[in-house]
């Protein structure tokens, strides 16, 4: 998660960092072992399976064919489309979410608007998968009530340009829907960290609003913004259930190709190709997270 911009504590006793009252080592282990088991079973073990499977053929012998296949034709295209979709929705979500955060941040800190928006975002950021797809089908699907309303009252046909909801444009819209609230959750703390005194200092020194954002607000928020952007990218890149519920033809993005490789009843014996696709996704997310770590390090200088 993106660490909020915090100002150094202004006073009070400073506690020695990281030391509780005479911690017993075994006690610490007791707490941490369930976590390690959890990580092992649900993260490390599947990753090892994916990694091993990606380099095996149907009989378990070593092969690089699965990985080679990723570089060609439909799979390469799916990766490009996945990256494109994730980048676009991350950008849309980040910009719109940042604007929303700003609107909330300048408002009353304990006001109704803020409480409603923050609570709503907490729910909506986790609102994905089949329920989300259904929500869109019920509103702007072929028989959705918004579609019908627009058609009946204004003669506007939402689907005049084709069945966009079930293709990439539809995915872009639906993904953006959960990206904006997530952006608000991770970006609002950073905005809250901007102290009014800084703005006052700029004003009293004769600076304009532009000077403030250019030299103070912007540079402080930039790392948090970029970090959130990467997080949103990874969030969209790994989304599956929403897309699976909406798109049934042509598998435009990688997670849907993995579904095809694992469950298809026509092209058989492609489980390991599915694992190679999974490995490809792991690599893309690892790159995004690596960039994120670099940003964090840079970001730490501000603190």
């Amino acid at each position, binding site marked *: 998660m993106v660490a909020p911009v915090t100002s150094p504590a202004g006073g009070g006793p400073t506690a020695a960092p990281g030391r509780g009252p005479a911690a017993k080592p075994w006690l610490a282990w007791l707490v941490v*072992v369930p976590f390690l088991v959890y990580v092992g079973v649900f993260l490390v073990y599947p990753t090892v399976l994916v990694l091993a499977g990606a380099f095996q053929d149907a009989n378990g012998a070593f092969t690089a064919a699965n990985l080679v296949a990723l570089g060609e034709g439909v799979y390469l295209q799916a990766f490009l489309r996945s990256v494109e979709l994730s980048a676009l929705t991350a950008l849309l979500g980040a910009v719109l979410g940042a604007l929303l955060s700003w609107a909330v941040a300048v408002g009353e800190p304990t006001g109704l608007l803020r409480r409603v928006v923050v609570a709503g975002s907490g729910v909506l950021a986790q609102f994905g998968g089949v329920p989300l797809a259904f929500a869109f089908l019920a509103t702007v699907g072929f028989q959705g009530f918004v579609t019908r309303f627009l058609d009946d009252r204004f003669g506007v046909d939402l689907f005049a340009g084709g069945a966009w909801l079930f293709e990439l444009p539809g995915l872009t819209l639906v993904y953006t829907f959960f990206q904006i609230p997530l952006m608000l959750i991770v970006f609002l703390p950073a905005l809250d960290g901007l102290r009014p005194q800084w703005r006052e200092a700029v004003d009293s020194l004769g600076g304009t609003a532009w000077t403030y954002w250019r030299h103070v607000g912007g540079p402080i928020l930039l790392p948090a913004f970029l970090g959130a952007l990467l997080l949103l990218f990874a969030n969209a890149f790994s989304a599956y259930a929403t897309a699976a519920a909406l798109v049934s*033809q042509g598998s435009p993005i990688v997670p849907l190709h993995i579904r095809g490789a694992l469950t298809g009843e*026509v092209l*058989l014996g492609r489980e390991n190709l599915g694992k190679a696709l999974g490995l490809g996704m792991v690599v893309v997310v690892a790159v995004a997270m690596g960039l994120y770590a670099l940003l964090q390090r840079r970001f730490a200088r501000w603190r």
Partner: protein
Amino acid sequence: MTHTRVLRAVGVGAIALALVAACGAPPAKEGAADNSSAATAKSAADLGGFDALVEAAKKEGRLNVIALPPDWANYGEIIEAFEAEYGIEVDSAQPDASSQEEINAANQLKGGDRAPDVFDLGLNVAVASKDLFAPYRVRSWDDIPAELKDPDGLYCGDYGGFMSIGYDAGKVPAPTSVKDLLKPEYQGKVALNGDPTQAGAAFSGVVMAALGNGGSADDVKPGVEFFKQLKAAGNFLPVDPSPATIESGQTPVVVDWDYTNAAQTAKLAGKADWKVVVPPGAQVGAYYNQAVNKDAPHPAAARLWQEFLFSDKGQNLYLKGLSRPVRLEALTKSGEVDAEANAKLPETGGDAVFLTQDQADAAKKVLSETWAQAVG
């Protein structure tokens, strides 16, 4: 964190993982071994006759089936009839799963008592998964045409049908050929049941389109080309059709098996005029196959299920669901056929095409390379 600590943490994680892996395999169920005679019986006679099979199955009391949608080929009624006749509880898992998911489930649940006892598979998956099956010949084995059954008794065709175009006659004109679907009257209205690189029904739909556009069983490219044109014309709907989308009017034209389309006719009677046409000159047929899991947790019940499906009663129940049971000819000859249901089957005429395994493999290759581009 120091390096030793990191190492220790990794070590503990690895040990925990090893423990989980060791415990991970589900405990093998001994029931199958106790009932070894049923697990190896290749026919009812091997167990001492049909009555002995019924006895053994009743003792097991349960049957696990998978991927049998209640509105597909009348499986809802078939399962109820089986339960009523033998007092065996049927546990129907993942009704909407694909053939390949049945096989995945059998591998993942192997040795446990939740593993599927029996399979209902497209030919493609059946041929590729023979190692998982126990050979079993039902009493009516001889009625089944030789080309529809495995010579070793590992699987055999059970019910089937032809690719068809289902349409809401209240909303669209009646199509008389595959090419008709390109007309502007079908704008945004034509759906295919699944992605043909993944779903057997959609795969056959593309073959049908190929036959209707100058292609053949050996050349399915015109079928892909047809859907590309359909998409370019704005007629192709990239929506997975289901009884719900048909009833709500989202998918007024659906390319699917005639028995699934015909089942909609019956279901929508009074609400919509759902008609089914098997396009002349583009008649693609296929049978679904039955097989017994060789690691079935209920080996006797699994075999009794086969006997039931291939009995006159079971076959007539398929017919009632408007699919074509494999023993239809024998039933017609013996006069046991449900004549009323038989009369309701969608009309067909001319030569029917059944793809050989080689033709299917060639078609799959073409689809894997071209489908995503054609409709993407």
